[in-house]
């Protein structure tokens, strides 16, 4: 720890050099303004700046949506957003320190500040200048509150510093060009969305293509200077209907890739839509499930979502430090929290798995730290947490998981969560094990959760430490050999520690869930890799449902 502080002292005396005559012009502009601001503001009274970072997110997004064979949306937009991170005081105690109790929204609220997309250096510098002034003054104000608060409140349970050192990174990656193939995409969107046309009981349907090119420019007073880009292609189908009892039902299927040829061929996409339509039709007439506890299988992608929501958010570093968090796992390092045959990693350096591109991959986090593979659980034993540059007891440094959407402040977040098992069986054997478990518990059936839309979890101390996961497509598996039956109308609920202790066996069918996760630092791309799992007990409760009748008049006549 002392060694780290010494390195910080050195950095304070010798701020980042601006000796970049060549190089990216946007980075050069940012660097000029950073050098100028840091030199002056670190000497400001009553408390000076000790860290300054500028990040510009240049995002171009092309979106094409179609419904029933017609285009419903086409947009091609580019925006650049600026984030200014100012730290006053010292790494030991600075303005980002948690203020316990009371709202802190004025400081933490999301803020979208645009900078020019044409790279005009004078205009960029003018905006950076104004925002730096605003941010620095707010930081000084907040630091005063932090210092005063510490004098009147009890000592915190984790007295770690507020900021950790990190080596300077210099990287200027290539910036790819985006060539939206509008005619190809719109044609494909029309054709795919047209497949929903014959089904008058499908009330809403949509096919959406989305391609984004994001380039991040980052400079900070540690001397980091980074430019890195990512391209993401997303294709998503969506269809919804309504059961006779007013329950609104939908299914969707997303595909993610880092290149257009990484998406499935049209024939495969057509088959996928047909499959989605069949499943939605089954759901429409499926019986409702009453509240139930008993054995269940979470299929691979559903298991990925389950682990992301219930486990992943609880191993984010800042939640171990905050006095308002539930801190489920904070004191459990070295203890067994999962079955011995399970391990969990978060590895944003992974780009693909099983031939699928991973949405959660990134090179550098939003604090200029290279992404690293983190062993979170090994053989069931908790080993560590996902760390930003905000240290916690026993974990003094970042492991490259400080992430945010532009406009928000960085916290530690997941990237690619990999749930690994050493005790796998085939899916058929997993189903057999489910039936066996049902018999053992004298249950007539178990449940298989094939598809999950997402979920949410309460990690705060003021609420109950529960989670809710929202299944979309669920089947009953009967012990007496009857065919599986599609059912509807349930959500999974539970508490995390109890739920993880019920995992008894896993499949060998690893699959990738790619998605976007929203939390206090905004929306970020994530992935989860997981096998199907058998849990000896899961609890489901009734899903909320609408009270409206289905449409009174029949659908308009379809022309074919």
């Amino acid at each position, binding site marked *: 720890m002392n060694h780290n502080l010494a390195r910080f002292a050195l950095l304070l005396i010798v701020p980042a050099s601006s000796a970049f005559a060549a190089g990216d012009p946007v980075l050069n502009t940012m660097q000029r303004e950073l050098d*100028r601001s840091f030199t002056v503001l670190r000497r400001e009274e009553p408390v000076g700046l000790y860290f300054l970072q500028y990040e510009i997110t240049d995002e171009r997004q092309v979106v094409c949506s179609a419904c029933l064979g017609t285009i*419903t949306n086409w947009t091609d937009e580019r925006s650049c957003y600026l984030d200014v991170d100012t730290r006053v005081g010292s790494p030991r105690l600075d303005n980002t320190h948690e203020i316990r109790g009371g709202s802190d929204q004025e400081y933490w609220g999301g803020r979208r500040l645009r900078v020019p*997309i044409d790279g*005009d250096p004078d205009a960029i510098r*003018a905006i950076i200048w104004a925002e*730096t*002034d605003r941010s620095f003054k707010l930081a000084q104000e907040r630091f005063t509150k932090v210092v005063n608060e510490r004098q009147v409140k009890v000592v915190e349970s984790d007295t770690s510093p507020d900021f950790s050192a990190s080596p300077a990174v210099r990287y200027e990656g290539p910036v790819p060009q985006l060539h939206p193939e509008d005619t190809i995409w719109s044609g494909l969107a029309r054709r795919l969305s047209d497949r929903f046309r014959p089904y008058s009981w499908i009330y*809403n349907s949509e096919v959406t293509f989305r391609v984004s090119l994001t380039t991040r420019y980052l400079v900070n007073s540690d001397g980091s200077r980074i430019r890195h880009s990512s391209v993401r292609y997303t294709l998503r189908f969506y269809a919804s209907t309504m059961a006779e009892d007013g329950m609104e039902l939908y299914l969707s299927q997303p595909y993610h890739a880092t290149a257009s040829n990484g998406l499935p061929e049209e024939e495969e996409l057509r088959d996928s839509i047909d499959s989605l339509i069949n499943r939605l039709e089954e759901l429409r007439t499926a019986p409702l499930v009453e509240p139930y506890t008993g054995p269940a299988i979470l299929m691979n992608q559903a298991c990925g979502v389950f682990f992301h929501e219930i486990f992943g958010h609880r191993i984010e570093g800042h939640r171990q430090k905050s006095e308002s968090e539930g801190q489920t796992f904070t004191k459990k390092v070295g203890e067994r929290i999962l079955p011995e045959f399970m391990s969990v990693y978060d590895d944003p350096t992974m780009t693909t798995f099983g031939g699928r591109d991973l949405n959660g991959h990134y090179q550098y986090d939003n604090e200029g730290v290279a992404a690293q593979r983190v062993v979170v659980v090994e053989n069931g034993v908790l080993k560590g947490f996902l760390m930003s540059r905000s240290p916690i007891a026993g974990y003094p440094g970042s492991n490259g998981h400080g992430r945010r959407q532009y406009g928000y402040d960085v916290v530690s977040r997941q990237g690619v969560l990999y749930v690994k098992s050493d005790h796998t069986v085939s899916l058929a054997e997993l189903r057999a094990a489910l039936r066996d478990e049902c018999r053992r518990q004298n249950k007539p059936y178990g449940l298989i959760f094939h598809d999950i839309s997402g979920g949410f979890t309460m990690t705060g101390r003021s609420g109950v430490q529960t989670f809710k996961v929202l299944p979309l497509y669920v089947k009953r598996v009967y012990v007496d050999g009857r065919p599986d039956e599609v059912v509807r109308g349930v959500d999974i609920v539970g508490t995390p520690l109890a739920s993880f202790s019920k995992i008894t066996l896993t499949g060998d069918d690893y699959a990738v869930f790619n998605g976007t996760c929203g939390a206090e630092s905004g929306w970020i791309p994530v992935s989860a890799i997981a096998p199907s799992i058998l849990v000896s007990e899961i609890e489901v409760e009734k899903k909320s449902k*609408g009270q409206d009748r289905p449409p009174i008049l029949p659908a308009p006549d*379809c022309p074919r």
Partner: protein
Amino acid sequence: MLVLLCGGVTYADDVLWKSLETELQRSAVELRLPGQLPPYYIGYRVNDVKQDRIVASFGGLLTKESHHNRYLRVALRVGDRSFDNGNFICPLYGSSTTPADFTGLPLEDDEYALRQSIWLVTDGTYKKALAVFARKQASIQNQQPRDTIPDFAPAAVCTLLQPLAPEAFDEAYWQDAVAELSGVFRSFPQIRESRVELTFTRGRQYWLDTDLNRSRRNDRIAALEVYATTQRKDGTIGEEMLGFYAPGPDELDMAAMLSEIRAWADTLCRQSHLEVGEGYSGPVLFLDQAAAELVFHILGKGIADPRAPRYESEAVEQGQGERALGGLADRFGHKVTARMLSVHDDAGREHYQGRMLVGHYAVDDEGVVPQRVNVVTDGKLTGYYMSRTPTKQVRVSNGHGRNWLEPYGGRIVGMPANMIIESSAGSTRAELLDQLISLAREYGNTQALIVTRLRPSSYESENDDAPRYARKPAEKKPLLSPAVTAYLVDVATRKMRLCRGMDFSSVTGRVLRDIVATGDRPYVYNVLYRERDNAIPVSVVTPALLVDDLDLVPRDERAVRPPIIKHPFFK
């Protein structure tokens, strides 16, 4: 029946129109829940809108966006014209399957896809109408009858078909032009932050209803708006705004805008060096933009939406927020301005003495052709801005119904379009100044006040880019927006000096009755009136107005430390 046919245009080949017509007929005949009231009126309004937006700051391009949207809004009534589900606010919404009131439509002309969306939103709106009707009946069953005014007025049948007019937008030219206009601020070091926004919105509005009204009108409005923030020498920060509005970007005069932006920026800079004054009491001469804003704020908004809706409960009424319109609605037949003034509104008029009027439209948002309305005659209120919602005094629409979004959804309200203020006793500018000084002397003042700019009605105070640390907590919105450009005139020497912006205090709806003299030259003012999520083009033509007695106080603004580091551009 009123029939306006433009150039022999038919709608036979308009797929959107055909789709709306087919679903309208089907729903009018077949849509009903067993045991429930059927709809007695259905109206469809589609806005097919393209919008380009370009924003620049300090010579750099911040964003350029292009959007195309089609929105369908459904007006559906159950009951009958004397008592229906209308004019009643309660928080009810449709489902995601069958949305109520409003939905997006496909951008392409595929009849089946269009009809699918129209079918579902009509269904959701009908179910909501039944629920609202039931709640409305319940809410009044224990109340004394307040009035017997019908809920919905008949209207003369209108058929108006404007030809489909493609509208080009020279994006490359305007990208450079907006950047150039924003670059003006490179000459003004006192202006701390600034930006220029061009928004060009154009499209078509379709209207079809079961009263046989059919219209297709073309809409277009270009807005070039400039925002600038100065920090004055006492540390206070103020953001001000300047707007230029025209039917299209081609009608915006680049040279004139450049010149006006420079002059405005120069005024802001000069104001930034001034001491805060002590306020003012006495006669005030409103010139040009200030006179137009004064009339619009007090009279235009005051007689808009003349019949307030019923609310399901006090909590709902509070949730709806402060009522911005209708403050003078109870003054019908009484004096609302000085006797020398008469005011009419002529939404059908496109120009006034060669100047374009952005408030113009051919048919309102309920498919009614606008009529000239004499709202004030010799100082007395003789008309309202009427939609198809009747009032005690006026039972029919005069074609001023405009869509108005509120927290619990949208409704159609009567709104100003082209307000034209005429005076029977116009004075020259010199005569007005004489009268101003004479009045000031009568009050024993050593100074008189001339206001040339009020903060425009298009200004949005909740702007994201406004400096957050300089904002004061939200307060009740005053009746009149602040005087941002004003001059104090020395009564003895007649010397004018620029002063800091001031707030009007204690202004009431009677301020126009205190007008003692008017100018003899009409000033044409175009503005986009913004309130919450609404943006309605309005034009005001008015002479200068001399008000007998007003109180103004210095603006109460938060002072912050000046920037710690010098601006990077202004070395």
